[in-house]
């Protein structure tokens, strides 16, 4: 199933696609045109263009301070862009706020993990299911039959999701008491619970050891195949990025300096320069 899916990956706007020669059969899930933001005159991101296929895994890399997380914040409207357009599944998102963006299909994780620390692991996932399993406040207070059926459904779904990362045994633990790696995984699960079409992962492998990273890589691919979603990830671990990303965009000083497949990126002189600096002789 995943094989047939991979073939239909697309990019109708060659200039903006990370990998221009990709199949253009289907509309991209995300199209970003000339996105930019400045903070009181300081240009943090400018002229950012990208298109992401329906089940594509792509990487956003670049040196510290290049503006990668800012891109995520713009896509999810944590910051309001000062210029440009973001089309999600062909629809303009300019009038949406963060919550509406999520309902429309973008979920994310955060670089500095943002769980609901005082709540249980299970409740964290159930909060991710907020717009998936719905019932009114009155239903909840009056404990109407619908409350019980919905709660049961939410619990079952939460357990299914926790099971992806083998975390069901931690369900009743307080989120803040989990070890760092488990917190990252929980945040991942919470984002998945919102049933996104596009998942933004901000440094998912940060703080993980090589074997954990290995496991994470296979999990990311597994989730993409199982849920049929697109994933953009910011990551410094090049083994992960080169290992699972089909397209990579490199950001430096708020601008894209290169786009392409992992092989193209690895041999791109601009990228090497951005990461390692210019050779002495070149100056």
């Amino acid at each position, binding site marked *: 199933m995943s094989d047939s899916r991979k073939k239909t990956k697309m990019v109708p706007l060659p200039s903006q696609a990370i990998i221009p020669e990709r199949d253009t059969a289907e509309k991209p899930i995300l199209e970003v045109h000339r996105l930019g933001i400045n*903070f009181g005159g300081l240009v943090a991101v400018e002229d950012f263009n990208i298109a992401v296929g329906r089940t594509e895994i792509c990487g956003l890399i670049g040196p510290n301070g290049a503006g990668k*997380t800012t891109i995520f*914040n713009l896509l999810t409207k*944590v910051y309001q862009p000062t210029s440009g357009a973001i089309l999600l599944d062909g629809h303009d998102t300019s009038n949406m706020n963060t919550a509406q963006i999520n309902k429309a299909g973008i979920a994310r994780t*955060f*670089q500095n993990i943002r769980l609901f620390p005082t709540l249980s692991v299970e409740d964290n996932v159930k909060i991710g299911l907020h717009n998936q399993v719905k019932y009114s406040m009155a239903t909840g207070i009056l404990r109407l039959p619908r409350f019980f059926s919905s709660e049961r459904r939410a619990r079952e779904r939460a357990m299914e999701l926790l099971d992806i990362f083998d975390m069901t045994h931690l369900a009743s633990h307080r989120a803040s008491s989990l070890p760092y790696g488990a917190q990252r995984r929980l945040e991942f699960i919470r984002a998945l619970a919102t049933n996104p079409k596009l998942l933004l992962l901000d440094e998912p492998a940060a703080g993980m050891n090589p074997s954990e990273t290995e496991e994470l890589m296979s999990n990311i691919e597994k989730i993409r195949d199982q849920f049929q979603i697109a994933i953009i990830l910011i990551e410094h671990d090049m083994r992960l990025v080169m290992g699972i990303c089909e397209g990579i965009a490199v950001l430096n000083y708020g601008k894209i300096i290169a786009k392409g497949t992992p092989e193209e990126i690895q041999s791109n002189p601009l990228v090497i320069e951005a990461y390692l600096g210019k050779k002495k002789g070149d100056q």
Partner: protein
Amino acid sequence: MDFLSYLISGISLGSIYAIIALGYTMVYGIAKMLNFAHGDVIMVGGYMSFMATTHFGWPPLLSVLFAMAVCTLLGIVIEQLAYKPLRSAPALAVLITAIGVSYFLQNAALLIWSANPKSFSSVVFLEALRLFDGRLIISGTTIVTIIVCLVIILILNTIVNKTKVGRAMRAVSEDKDAAQLMGVNVNKTISITFAIGSALAAIAGVLLCSAYPILMPTTGAMPGIKAFTAAVFGGIGSIPGAFLGGILLGIIEILGKAYISTQLSDAIVFAVLIIILLVKPTGLLGKKVLVKV
């Protein structure tokens, strides 16, 4: 002419609020706590000055110094006993403790001086100023209050911006931990801030009672709340903000009383505060903080 007269009383009342608000704002800026007992230190200052003049027969100026000394000591003791042990506790725990201290001071005053109002005789003996053939009269207390407020602002500004203690204060208010690492004695700096704030409260207490000569255990409560409002008004943590907020609050209160409704003057003050905060959510001179995600 009436308007001018109201305006001047407004500035005078505002000066008192500003002096109290400075205490609130400095403590907030440095210890990140709302010291609800601050208003009651004002009341203690008032009683001290009252005692010194009526019971010991001391001259007014000496009574003010006495009140300042007692309040400074009181401020340091309160800080050491009640607030210092809670340095790493949640903000709300410190707030409730401050409320406890406030109850304590009010009820101690009630025991010592009883609920009967004392009539306070002004410590100011300056002749009233008569202008425009006596159509505009500015009382001596008013003049002294405004001058004292200006002098305090100048002194404070110098302390905060020009001295070593001031630099330590700015460092602690910016980042307590980093300041500690750089060798700033955080505890000492906080104590000094409380001492200064309490000394100011004593001055405010004396001026307040000189202008409105009724002294009761609850005298400080309402001016305390209003001065706190003034501090937020101007942007809490900012010294010029406290000054500006205090003066504006005083003017609004007096003009509201004169032209709109006596009973609603407090409501007007608070309504203006709400409007200001809606337009500028961190107060007039407060800094906007960008949340980092």
